[in-house]
């Protein structure tokens, strides 16, 4: 009785070992004696024939996988100068990439190649060699970077998509630079650019100071001129007002006004002047001082 129970239990356990669950981002590749049961099992609970008849391998298909690629010969081995790539204008650069990919055909991915990552790296570098051999180094280091990554993505996908059942979702250029022996020369160009820019900025700064200064000087000149003009006019007006006043008086009583004016003039002359009165009929010559003579007409 017990023997039967134990026997039943063993058989039950054996058959029950065929249950398995597939996680939310996985697919289950189930085989029966080698034949792949299509399609790959979606997430959920499934059953396969117990070992050794049936097996299952679960693969995460939504996880984005990353590969860091450094285009150097002897992957993994550090060889001097191993990572140099030629550009179209016979210059040399080094570059490294980061590849993101997902699995779209788990069966292929599982069975067709032992280390898919390696193959991806090789293809990336092979395409990088081809792409850079057509570019100028200045473009490759600067404006050409997006073109490099997009072309690598296209070419790698074309090459290995069907082969490995993967889809490259993005390619990043994690670094592209001139080789170590010439790096400082390249850096010197950047600093020369910066120097040149600084020269121009200094000149502009100076200009931005000089021109306003000149303008304010100009304004001052004009202001002074205006003031002078004002003063001129005011003075003249003042004089003329006095004249018109005198004229009015003259028009009323001409002789009196004439006399008044004479006297007024003399009064102001009397202060600080030596006055000498001379009768010309009596005097022959008169020394006026400073070598001048008043000569009486003979």
């Amino acid at each position, binding site marked *: 009785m017990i023997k039967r129970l134990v026997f039943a239990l063993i058989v039950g356990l054996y058959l029950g070992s065929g249950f398995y669950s597939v996680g939310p981002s996985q697919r289950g590749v189930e085989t029966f004696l080698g034949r792949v049961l299509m399609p790959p099992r979606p997430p959920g609970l499934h059953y396969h024939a117990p070992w050794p008849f049936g097996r299952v391998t679960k693969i995460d298909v939504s996880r984005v996988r990353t590969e860091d690629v450094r285009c150097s*010969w002897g992957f993994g081995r550090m060889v001097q100068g191993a990572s140099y790539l030629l550009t179209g204008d016979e210059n040399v650069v080094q570059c490294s990439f980061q590849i993101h990919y997902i699995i779209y055909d788990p069966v292929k991915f599982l069975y067709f190649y032992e280390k898919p990552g390696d193959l991806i790296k*090789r293809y990336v570098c092979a395409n990088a060699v081809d792409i850079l051999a057509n570019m100028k180094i200045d473009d490759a280091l600067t404006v050409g970077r997006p073109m490099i990554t997009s072309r690598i993505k296209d070419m790698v996908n074309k090459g290995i998509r069907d082969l490995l059942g993967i889809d490259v979702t993005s390619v990043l250029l994690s670094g592209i630079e001139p080789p170590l022996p010439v790096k400082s020369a390249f850096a010197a160009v950047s600093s020369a650019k910066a120097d040149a820019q600084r020269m121009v900025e200094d000149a502009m700064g100076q200009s931005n100071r000089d021109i306003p200064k000149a303008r304010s*000087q100009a304004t001052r000149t004009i202001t002074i001129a205006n003031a002078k003009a004002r003063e001129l006019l005011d003075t003249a007006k003042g004089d003329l007002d006095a004249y018109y006043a005198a004229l009015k008086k003259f028009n009323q009583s001409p002789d009196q006004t004439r006399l008044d004016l004479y006297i007024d003039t003399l009064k102001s002359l009397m202060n600080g002047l030596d006055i000498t009165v001379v009768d010309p009929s009596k005097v022959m010559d008169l020394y*006026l001082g400073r070598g001048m003579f008043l000569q009486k007409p003979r």
Partner: protein
Amino acid sequence: MKKVIGIFFSVLILVWLATMVVPVYPAQFVVITRLGRPVRVIDRPGPAIKAPWPFESATHIGGRLNLTEVTPLEVLTQDKKNLVMGAFAVWRVMDPLKFLSSVRTFDAASVRIGDMVASLLGNQVASMPLNDFISVDHPTALKKVDQALLRQVKNRCKSAFGIDVVDVRVERMIFPDDNLRHVFNRMRAERRRIAKKYRAEGEEKAMKIMSDTDLKVRKILADAKMKALQIEGDAQAKVLALKRKAWESNPEFYRFYRRLQAVKTVLKRGGQLIISTNSWLFSILEGIKAK
């Protein structure tokens, strides 16, 4: 006792019968041999049936993709330029029987394929100028090289080893180390030239800005001076006009009045005044004294 022996033998027979079933997984070949002689090949995944051991045996041959790296070698272009090139080949077993009867192992196959690619690569490169490999003006022919290599290698490996070469790619292309030194010198010299150019351009621009500024400043000041002269001139003209109007009002009186003003101004500074008894000034003085 009999039961145990019975169970034991049943299990033995079951195990023996089980050798009739061979699971064949994807990317796998199974070669069925009869007493050492291969009789058939299973290339479809799934369970396969054969005669039980020892009549027929099953040998598994990997059908996965393999990668063979072709060590970089120095090659010469048509125009006698040196390049170091490396490549890789992706291949898999296609005909296991042929494979087993030729290279037999994967390592051996790898070596043979590597050598083949290397020599074909050398030939291919020797028929093309350097321009076909690196150029900025026209498209390079690396793809053509890859395709030519693939074509040649594929055919040979298929017929000789039962191997399907899926792809051949050049993965490395660089000048030899000796040349690299010259290349680096040239690169450094070129960068120096570019740096000089930037500096010169900057200087030129800066100088232009300064001379333009100078011109502007001069113009601003000159314009202002001119304007100032204009303003003063206008004022003077106005004054003149006013004076003329005053003169027009009574020319004689104006003259008289002006003369007196002039005398005041000229003689204000002090000095000597000589008056003749004939002069009107004297007559005024007399008049004053009398008053």
